[in-house]
């Protein structure tokens, strides 16, 4: 039986990549300390920043909001209603979970509902535009990125934080390596600085395995949406995560080494030439004012026909 390294009590979790066993109390303490350390080490934000946390109702984003709240950061939440039903009222239930979480802790939550704002749900947008080959995930990503940046700018937040964990990052990296999407490789980073109207984006959980964020949520008693997004079934991301977990099973630490090795190579300039191209000039969208890579309308404005156009915001 494994014992907690800190107190010798019976451990509830053993992290093989760190050879670290911890009891419930010390795991919850360790998790918060590690998050604080990551935020400091990668200069993500300070107590003076106003942080907007994108919360979906899943374990990672709610755990992140919980940890930032416990650490005393100025962290408000943003929930984006996607209008996904999938026979399980997925979006409605997610919203209820997020609202209950915020209310229990007295936290400020901003809700943006896509069908109300733009007259269509995410699956409807994907169907109308024939994007995504039956899966609305790419449309969903585009809409969420647009709304997150708009809300952060409109409300004066200096940092946008998401709950991406190491498994998320390793799976994206794996997929991009498998297809040699070098432009995406250059852009992938746990800290994307603010530039040309884009708010700074950070991922404070990027060093945690998904298993660890799930354990935190479970041990903290956080009620989260356990059901997967109905459109995530059969998604490539899940397949790649499973493949990486099989590698991890045989060689503990593989996922961590894979991603940290990538960041090290990137820091040493391995992708410098591509990075310059990837970070080309940005222009203000002629409709919404948000940054876009090509002059004219941004991809979001080409996608939606808003019922009411959100007010364009000037670049800071």
């Amino acid at each position, binding site marked *: *039986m*494994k014992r907690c390294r800190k107190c010798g009590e*019976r*451990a*509830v*979790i*053993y992290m093989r990549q760190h050879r670290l066993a911890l009891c*419930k109390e010390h795991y919850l303490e360790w998790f918060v300390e590690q998050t604080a350390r990551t935020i400091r080490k990668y200069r993500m934000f300070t107590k003076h920043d106003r942080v907007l946390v994108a919360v979906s109702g*899943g*374990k*990672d984003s709610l755990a992140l909001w919980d940890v930032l709240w416990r650490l005393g950061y100025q962290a408000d939440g943003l929930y984006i209603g996607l209008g996904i039903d999938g026979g399980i009222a997925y979006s409605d239930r997610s919203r209820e979970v997020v609202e209950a979480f915020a209310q229990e802790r007295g936290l400020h939550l901003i809700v943006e509902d896509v069908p109300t704002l733009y007259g269509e749900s995410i699956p409807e947008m994907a169907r109308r535009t024939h994007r*995504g*080959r039956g*899966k609305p*995930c*790419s449309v*969903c*990503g585009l809409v969420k990125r647009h709304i997150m940046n708009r809300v952060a700018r409109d409300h004066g937040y200096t940092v946008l934080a998401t709950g991406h964990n190491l*498994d*998320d990052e390793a*799976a994206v990296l794996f997929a991009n390596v498998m297809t040699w999407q070098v432009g995406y490789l250059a852009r992938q980073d746990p800290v994307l600085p603010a530039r040309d109207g884009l708010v700074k984006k950070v991922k404070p959980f990027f060093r945690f*395995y*998904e*298993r660890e*964020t*799930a*354990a935190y949520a*479970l*041990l903290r008693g956080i009620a989260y949406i*356990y059901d*997967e*997004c109905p*459109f*995530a079934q059969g*998604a*490539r*991301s*899940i397949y790649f*995560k*499973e493949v990486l*977990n*099989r590698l*991890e*099973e045989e060689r503990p630490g593989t996922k961590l080494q894979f991603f940290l090795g990538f960041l090290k190579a990137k820091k040493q300039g391995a992708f410098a030439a591509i990075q310059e191209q990837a970070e080309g000039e940005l222009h203000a969208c002629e409709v919404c004012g948000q940054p876009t890579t090509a002059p004219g309308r941004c991809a979001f404005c080409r996608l939606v026909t808003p019922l009411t156009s959100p007010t364009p915001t000037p670049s800071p």
Partner: protein
Amino acid sequence: MKDKARGTATLILRDQTFTVPAGITVREAIRHVGLVPESVLPTRDGELIPEDERLQDGDVIRLVAVISGGWA
């Protein structure tokens, strides 16, 4: 002395149920049914339990799937 039959335990993952022999560890049981321990968290009565715990006859272990995601 040869091990006597020690009964069985049950693993539940979403809508799947697996019967495993008692006496093996939780980690061994997860592998026994073809799952990857890295992808699940074992719980009993809603509490996280260590993977090196030995299963008793009649144990019911709920596995919490930890993988989420969704770009197609």
